[in-house]
């Protein structure tokens, strides 16, 4: 069930499935938006009634106009507002008085233009709320519904796209026209095509839920410039994927590091908005694409062919080199070359020349015509060891390109396994490519894109089929104790917690701490060090010193009472020299953990996604290596498991080259506890556990140092 504030199907149907449309502000001047919107509705044969509202014209293209929308005698489902922004509110008010429940505000000059525009947009929204109108925009290209029973082209795009299984949502109107042009050249069809503009009323979340229940939409594509409610987006994606299995592909622009620049912790610095966005989209099951090309490559595969059941591909080619290139690309994407059954091999021997390579990649030889392709592709698709066919063609003098395209298209639609093609070249293969695309066989100019698309489609299927893991039950938290420590710091007006407060917060959530004491003199440092047991590490304690190592405020490997005394004096001297204005409250003496691998765990608040948890290889070089992974809280236990294994250094933790396997179960437990802390204590803005020492399997992990900002 969608959240209660999401627009219902009944609210959005007047926009997508209207039986009558008023174009409010239409003109008779061809080449203008108000005229072209009207003309598109007419040209693309909208199946309902069209009422142009145009105070300056008695008719447009022979169709009677109305001075005001309220003058229309018939009921109207949808109003498309194309008036200048200054009068849109008046027009929408009349729509409300007329009882119209759906609107598309095409006009620009609202929030995107500054304070006056913001006011205009607020006014529109207030009128819509008053009359119960749902509207798309303002500042958008419009809406297209290709359903033959509707045929609504309420946009100023140049042409209506073909009907198809893809729903497209875009925050950018200009990108929409480019996408439509691109898609037309590749015969890609759409179910719904929506430019949602400033989303003053209807948001991308409303539209995602609408497409979830739209029987004409099988794959959803979305272009976003900013994500205003990341949590809602993630929930919508999860609902769509789990309830319908429809894949969601996203193109998100605006990769920025501005957020990272202002951060005070390692986690804050590393959790730049795009890193978090990337992690969040993946966590929600959304396939993020970097380019329009990539988006449609994957969309074609998912919309027009069955999802692969496994990673065993058969490559059929008429050229050795491209076969090898495809093999390389397949392996790099985690695919495997299928081992053909004996039956398949026998079929090859019968149908292919002796010079053909009957192993994978199958080389049907340069002089192959359609019959040889047909025999090879038919055989591999019938083989139980094959999960999909990748067909390569290069144009030789005798290659009957169009016939081969025909045969592959037919086979592709007869099989329950996916068939993708790459006809390599440009001019000679163009007619074959056109046949493939018209018949909805995914085609790729290069094999790398083909293999990547296969891998992404497979991954989506595997993720859909993996069972949800229940959250680990934790009952041993003391929220009150954590709150008391946090309250102490905020009461003092400090945004950094002191070591004793950090210990209280972490202990309250069961996070394992290294034993420590605070020394106020060199003698005391020696005493505590002896009591804790050598070796120890000593650290300066000051509210003003954030990065202690940088100011000579940390001494490691202290092996005796004498060394502890001199370390104390050195730390105090360094602090006085490097941070003369800092108030030093003493020196923390801590049992030094040896033999543990250093990792980092952290929390950051993202303005859109909320609490974000980070894991990575730790220590002082964490910001140099940037080998970290992120998840948005709450985190499914399976995702906790994945985020540890996602970093490049994972083999170091998992016993690579004779190293010991680390206690990753203990790290997973820490991540779960930290996630609970992040959700329970929203006043924590940033938190670092760095290093977290991880010992060998069964021996746990310990927090070596921590920083908490509120």
């Amino acid at each position: 069930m969608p959240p209660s504030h999401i627009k219902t199907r009944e609210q959005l149907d007047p926009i997508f499935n209207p039986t009558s449309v008023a174009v409010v502000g239409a003109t008779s001047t061809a080449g203008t938006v108000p005229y072209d919107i009207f003309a598109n509705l007419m040209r693309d044969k909208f199946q309902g009634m069209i009422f142009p509202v145009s105070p300056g014209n008695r008719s447009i293209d022979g169709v009677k106009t109305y001075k005001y929308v309220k003058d229309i005698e018939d009921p109207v489902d949808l109003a498309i507002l194309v008036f200048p922004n200054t009068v849109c509110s008046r027009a929408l008010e009349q729509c409300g008085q007329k009882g119209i429940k759906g609107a598309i505000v095409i006009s620009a000059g609202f929030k995107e233009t500054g304070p006056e525009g913001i006011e205009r947009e607020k006014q529109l929204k207030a009128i819509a709320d008053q009359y119960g109108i749902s509207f798309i925009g303002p500042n958008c290209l419009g809406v297209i519904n290709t359903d033959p029973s509707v045929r609504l082209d309420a946009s100023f795009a140049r042409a209506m796209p073909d009907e198809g299984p893809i729903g497209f949502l875009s925050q950018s109107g200009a990108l929409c026209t480019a996408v439509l042009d691109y898609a037309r050249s590749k015969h890609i069809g759409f179910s719904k095509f929506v430019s949602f503009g400033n989303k003053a009323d209807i948001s991308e979340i409303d539209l995602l839920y609408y497409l979830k229940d739209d029987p004409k939409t099988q794959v959803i594509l979305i272009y976003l410039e900013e994500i205003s409610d990341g949590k809602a987006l993630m929930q919508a994606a999860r609902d769509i994927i789990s309830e319908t299995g429809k894949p969601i592909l996203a193109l998100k622009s605006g990769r920025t590091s501005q957020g990272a620049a202002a951060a005070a912790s390692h986690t804050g610095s590393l959790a730049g908005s795009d890193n978090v966005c990337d992690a969040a989209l993946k966590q929600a099951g959304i396939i993020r694409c970097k380019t329009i090309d990539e988006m449609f490559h994957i969309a074609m595969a998912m919309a027009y062919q069955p999802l692969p059941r496994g990673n065993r591909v058969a490559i059929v080619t008429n050229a050795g080199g491209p076969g090898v290139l495809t093999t390389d690309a397949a392996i790099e994407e985690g695919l495997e070359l299928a081992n053909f059954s004996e039956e398949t091999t026998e079929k090859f021997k019968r149908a292919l020349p002796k010079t053909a390579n009957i192993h994978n990649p199958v080389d049907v030889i340069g002089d192959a015509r359609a019959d040889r392709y047909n025999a090879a592709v038919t055989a591999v698709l019938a083989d139980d060891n094959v999960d999909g066919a990748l067909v390569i063609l290069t144009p030789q003098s005798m290659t009957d390109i169009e016939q081969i395209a025909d045969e592959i298209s037919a086979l592709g639609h007869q099989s329950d396994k996916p068939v993708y093609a790459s006809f390599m070249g440009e001019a000679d293969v163009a007619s074959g490519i056109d046949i493939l695309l018209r018949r909805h066989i995914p085609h790729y100019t290069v094999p790398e894109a083909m293999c990547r698309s296969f891998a992404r489609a497979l991954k989506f299927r595997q993720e859909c089929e993996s069972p949800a893991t229940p959250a680990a039950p934790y009952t041993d938290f003391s929220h009150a104790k954590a709150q008391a420590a946090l309250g102490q710091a905020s009461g003092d007006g400090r945004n950094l917690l002191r070591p004793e407060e950090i210990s209280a917060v972490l202990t309250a959530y069961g996070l394992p701490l290294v034993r420590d004491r605070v020394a106020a003199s060199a003698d005391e440092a020696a005493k505590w060090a002896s009591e804790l047991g050598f070796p120890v590490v000593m650290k300066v304690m000051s509210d003003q010193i954030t990065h202690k190592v940088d100011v000579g405020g940390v001494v490691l490997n202290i092996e005796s009472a004498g060394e502890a005394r001199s370390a104390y004096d050195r730390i105090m001297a360094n602090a006085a020299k490097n941070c003369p204005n800092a108030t030093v409250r003493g020196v923390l003496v801590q049992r030094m953990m040896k033999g543990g691998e250093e990792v980092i765990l952290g929390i950051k608040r993202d303005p859109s996604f909320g609490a974000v948890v980070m894991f990575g290889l730790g220590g002082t070089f964490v910001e140099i290596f940037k080998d970290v992974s992120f998840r948005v809280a709450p985190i499914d236990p399976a995702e906790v498991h994945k985020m540890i294994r996602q970093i490049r250094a994972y083999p170091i933790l998992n016993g690579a080259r004779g190293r010991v396997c680390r206690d990753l179960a203990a790290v997973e437990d820490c991540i779960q506890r930290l996630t609970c802390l992040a959700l329970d204590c929203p006043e924590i803005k940033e938190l670092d556990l760095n290093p977290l020492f991880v010992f060998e399997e069964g021996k746990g992990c310990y927090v070596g140092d921590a920083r908490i900002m509120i």
Partner: protein
Amino acid sequence: MNESEIVSRVKKAAGFVLKIDPEQISDDANFVFDLGADSKQSVQLVGALEEEFGVSLDEDKALAVQDIDSCVKFVAQYL
């Protein structure tokens, strides 16, 4: 020139550009919403007003004027 004469001549200019009988234009008519002026006609209207009143108007300010009432007040500043 008194106000009623300005009103009458503003309506005359608007009627000429927008091809509407000046008698049909109300005092509070909005050029776009009620009279259907498009952007090209709005520019033409500024020219027609300048010719009608023999003045030179600030075009940016003139184009921001929304209705007959405001237009009368705006033109009066130049007379």
